[in-house]
């Protein structure tokens, strides 16, 4: 059988068993086991061990655990509720106001963490139940958390940009600067969309009812928001500040964040051994959910790449004769298709050796081109059937939320990501301004 057929068979099997209801981590691993055994031979299984060990021995991923712990502490301490509550009153009369606040918090949080699992799960924990409680439509709620949470890996710090810079022999510093504006641009696009949707149809994101607002005078809203918003602001300052001022790496900052959140739990008088234990248990469940998928995915990607699947896929599509922008479009489409199935690490490993020389021949600025790819890969977290942001949200099992709500909810955000990508293509200065202004 040819590599092309085998690759397609691999993805088909993946889709079939996943939709039969088996846990994704084990479907990824199971398909890798079957194809590894029959196509390559049992000697490949040592690779499962070394790749799994590589996942376990990764200081960057440690932040997933600790941000999830932070999210759990913040949730039970009521601090997060306080923050969103006060923001809700501040933006009270605005339709979709709370949604706008959530995206804003997502952007700030994205500046603290560099991995997708951490930001989506944490934002899901903090903002999800809150949005649903105040009558936000399930679809838009899921969409905004998945899309907003995924910004964590685009806006620096970002493990993705670090690896991309490494793979491309480019200064990571320039790439990190280049990704700031596109990241914020996407966030703003999400906000504009939420504002418009909720303005047209307030049922999607209701404003605070006038009766409820009337009970709380404006002055009290402001002082109230100061009181409630202050502790989480301090927390954000601690986490962000420790990164910005070079006190801590993002991983260390996640530890500081978790510890500070614990202090808040005690300070707010919500500490009991039982709540504490529950936080610990939920953290374990959420962490193993997120990282075991990475383990399955790393085995899957390893087998796929060893088979030569990635190369075959690209060779087939690049064989067509196209012009500069035709090839560019095609490359972007390949990224989108790959993004539907495999994780970004695999995609970077597959396409970089092929795309970068092509981009160079076509005369694209490498910093611009790689940043565009990073923006494009934002879609991979949301695009069905395999979008990791979606799965993390599904894994959190929020009340009344089904996978279908999540799938439907992200569609408009995928469209917004395409728009963002188009803007960055038409106006390359969005990407290039910061790195050229700040570094020579």
């Amino acid at each position, binding site marked *: 059988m040819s590599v092309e057929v085998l690759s397609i068979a691999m993805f088909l099997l993946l889709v079939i068993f996943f939709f039969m209801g088996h846990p994704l*981590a*084990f479907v990824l*691993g199971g398909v890798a086991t079957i194809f590894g055994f029959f196509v390559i031979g049992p000697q490949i299984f040592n690779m499962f*061990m070394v790749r799994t060990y590589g996942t376990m021995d990764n200081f960057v991923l*440690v932040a997933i655990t600790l941000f999830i712990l932070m999210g759990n502490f913040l949730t039970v301490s009521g601090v997060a509720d306080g923050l969103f509550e006060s923001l809700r009153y501040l933006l009270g009369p605005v339709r979709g106001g709370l949604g706008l606040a959530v995206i804003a918090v997502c952007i700030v949080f994205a500046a603290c963490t560099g991995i997708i699992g951490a930001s989506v799960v944490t934002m899901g924990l903090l903002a999800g139940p809150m949005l649903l409680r105040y009558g936000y439509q399930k679809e838009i709620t899921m969409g905004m958390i998945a899309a907003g949470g995924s910004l964590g890996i685009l806006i620096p710090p970002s493990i993705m940009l670090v690896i991309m810079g490494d793979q491309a022999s480019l200064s990571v510093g320039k790439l990190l600067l280049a990704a700031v504006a596109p990241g914020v641009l996407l966030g703003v696009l999400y906000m504009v969309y939420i504002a418009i949707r909720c303005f047209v149809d307030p049922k999607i994101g209701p404003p605070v009812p006038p009766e409820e607002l009337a009970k709380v005078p404006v002055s009290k809203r402001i002082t109230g928001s100061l009181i409630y918003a202050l502790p989480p602001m301090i927390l954000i300052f601690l986490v962000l500040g420790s990164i910005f001022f070079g006190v801590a790496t993002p991983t260390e900052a996640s530890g500081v964040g978790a510890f500070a959140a614990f202090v808040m739990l005690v300070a707010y008088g919500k500490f009991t051994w039982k709540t504490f234990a529950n936080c610990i248990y939920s953290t374990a469940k959420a962490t193993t959910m997120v990282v075991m998928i990475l383990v399955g995915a790393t085995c899957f990607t390893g087998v796929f790449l060893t088979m030569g699947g990635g190369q075959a896929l690209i060779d087939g599509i690049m064989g067509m004769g196209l012009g500069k922008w035709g090839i560019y479009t095609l490359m972007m489409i390949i990224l989108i298709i790959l993004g539907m199935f495999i994780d970004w690490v695999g995609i970077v490993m597959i396409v970089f050796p092929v795309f970068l020389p092509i981009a160079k021949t076509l005369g694209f600025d490498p910093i611009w081109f790689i940043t565009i790819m990073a923006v494009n890969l934002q879609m991979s977290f949301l695009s069905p059937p395999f979008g990791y942001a979606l799965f993390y949200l599904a894994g959190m099992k929020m009340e009344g939320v089904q996978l279908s709500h999540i799938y439907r909810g992200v569609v408009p955000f995928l469209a917004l990501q395409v728009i963002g990508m188009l803007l960055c293509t038409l106006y390359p200065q969005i990407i290039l301004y910061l790195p050229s202004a700040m570094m020579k």
Partner: protein
Amino acid sequence: MSSGKIENLLKIIDSISDWTGKVFSYIVVPLTVLIVFEVITRRFFDAPTIWTFEMSNFLFGAHFMLCAAYGLLYKSHVSIDLFTSHTNKKVQEILGIVSYAFMFFPFMIVFLIWGIDFTVTAWKMGETSWSVWGPSLVPIKAVIPVTAALVLLQGIAEVIKKILYLRKGVAL
């Protein structure tokens, strides 16, 4: 085996996953303390330690791996429920058994066998990490086969639950 015995077995397996999971969940506490400790000693006392960096990786790896069976028990691992009505529940359980047979067990058995091999190889050569601290890597590598064993055990329990449902029509 009588069905009473089977149910006892299920209870035992479930409680193994439950207890190991609860105990290993607490690994996150020393992990947090360690990292905060490192930030403080390094930044404020200029006395960085040589072992916190590696130790936090070990704790992270052990935490999410050893809690995997616990996650399986509480259905935390991401999966899709397409069939929710009662009549379809049977179909779902059959599909579930098929998936366990073709996906779960082959993967986890590979994890167990190669994990033991991976650990024994490290043990035979007395492998340590590469730093001055140089701790043995055997315990952290042993986490892989131990995880596989725990997850396999819970997987067996999940399959038995599905079979029992098909036979008796009651969810356990």
